């Protein structure tokens, strides 16, 4: 069964029927937002049943759209958290990817600014590596980008999309080591993105992120995960009641090959390891449960089939 990421947007009235339908079809709801009279469901559903959900949702004023970023956690890496880089463009981009279903976290570097003085510390590196993809938002000068990128990319293992002021071709030429995606003409600016060409640029960033993530999905498909992170999310939600008391908007954040569990590692790591998924297979057998560098959260990394010889 191939699961595809979609967003369902409809009225609150009878929306529980849609939730039941998705669950009955074997899909997973990643996030549910209730905004006034509207409900937004970000979910994974079987590919063959998308039309069925669309047909059943239609009388309820429901709308189904493809959301390739659902189920991904994106690090938006800002060179600092000063007024120079915030709220534009960092927040504009972080908010835009969130609208399309991704869970975005902003990583503000301690010393990302400048040319000679730029640096990346171990905490920043580890936090970026906990995401599915990192979007680096750089400045406007070629010289600075060329000079500091080798330092800022040191130890980064996740795919990176670089956004900067120079043209895309220039970025492709100057950024060393080479990264997976480039978006040019989006450097530092001090106004809100509201003009049509600026919004087109945001769409270009999304397209680049989607392209890079699709390549990652293809790579993952060659050696499938032992269990889908979305399924793991459902299992944890059912068997660890403490997760229901977490006030964070996404207590369980689904990633492409894992899950972030927003519970303290010391107390809950062992509990998670012992949870049975199916037929005596426990989470600890098919996934690595590690402490996250983000607060005291837990990061669950699902191992691939080639390591566990199990797919459930």
């Amino acid at each position, binding site marked *: 069964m191939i699961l595809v990421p979609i967003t369902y947007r409809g009225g609150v009235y009878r929306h529980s029927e849609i939730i039941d339908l998705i669950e009955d079809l074997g899909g997973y709801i990643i996030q549910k937002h209730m905004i006034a009279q509207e409900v937004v469901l970000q979910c994974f559903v079987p590919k063959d049943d998308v039309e069925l959900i669309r047909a059943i949702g239609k009388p309820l004023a429901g709308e189904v759209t493809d959301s390739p970023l659902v189920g991904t956690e994106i690090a938006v890496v800002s060179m600092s958290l000063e007024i120079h880089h915030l709220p534009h463009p960092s927040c504009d981009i972080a908010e835009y990817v969130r609208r399309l279903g991704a869970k975005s976290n902003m990583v503000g570097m301690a010393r990302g600014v*400048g040319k000679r003085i*730029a640096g990346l510390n171990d905490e920043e590196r580890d936090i970026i590596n906990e995401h599915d993809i990192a979007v680096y938002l750089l400045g*406007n000068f070629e010289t*600075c980008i060329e000079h500091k990128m080798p330092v800022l990319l040191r130890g980064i293992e996740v795919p990176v999309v670089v956004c900067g002021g*120079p043209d895309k071709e220039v970025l492709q030429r100057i950024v060393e080591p080479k990264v997976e995606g480039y978006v040019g003409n989006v450097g*530092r600016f*001090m106004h809100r993105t509201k003009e049509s060409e600026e919004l087109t640029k945001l769409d270009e960033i999304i397209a680049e992120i989607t392209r890079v993530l699709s390549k990652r999905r293809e790579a993952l498909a060659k050696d499938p995960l032992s269990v889908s992170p979305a399924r793991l999310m459902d299992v944890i939600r059912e068997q660890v009641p403490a997760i229901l008391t977490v006030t964070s908007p996404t207590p369980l954040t689904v990633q492409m090959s894992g899950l972030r569990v927003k519970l303290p590692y010391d107390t809950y790591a062992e509990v998670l390891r012992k949870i049975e998924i199916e037929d005596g297979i426990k989470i600890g057998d098919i996934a690595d449960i590690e402490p996250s560098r983000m607060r005291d959260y837990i990061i669950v990394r699902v191992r691939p089939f080639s390591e566990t010889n199990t797919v459930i």
Partner: protein
Amino acid sequence: MQAIEYFEVECTEKLGGEYYRQIANDVLLDHNLLRVIHKIHVYIDPKVPIFVAVGVLRKVTTLVKVGDIANVNPQEGKLTLAISDETWLAPMLKIFWDRFGKEHVDQPDRFTVILYGVTAGAREIEEIAIADPSKALYKDLVYALRCICPEGFRVRSENYGAEKFSFVASEDTLTDAGMALLREKFALMGETP
């Protein structure tokens, strides 16, 4: 509003210069500084690296008076003020309360203030000074130039005078060559430091 007479952003990288022109424009506009800056020249060379901003200020307008933001209409036993610009409404009310007492000042809606039983005439009320915009000007100017300047350029030499200002910043220690650029850029505007 008077526009800036001279506004140049010079950069060794063409595209970077265009972006910085936009940034400078946005920041000055956001801080309402376009009306006080007469000339400004920005020079950036990321290779050195150095950032220079030099400029000439306009004579800052005098005190803001009640007559500048409101029409004072004398009526029987009261004076009605029709507010045209809310910016200075709060300091104006504070001054009225201190001077006439709260029982004599009423604000029935957002754009109307009524003074009851005050002895002062309309002309006298119009002449009351309510704010001095030049006090906040230098604070805004310092903040704006630091905003425009690339963030990594943390070694700064700033000079804000009554008529002219200069700002040099770099990542490295500032040298005499950097300071000499100041005179050169002032000369481009036809000014001396």
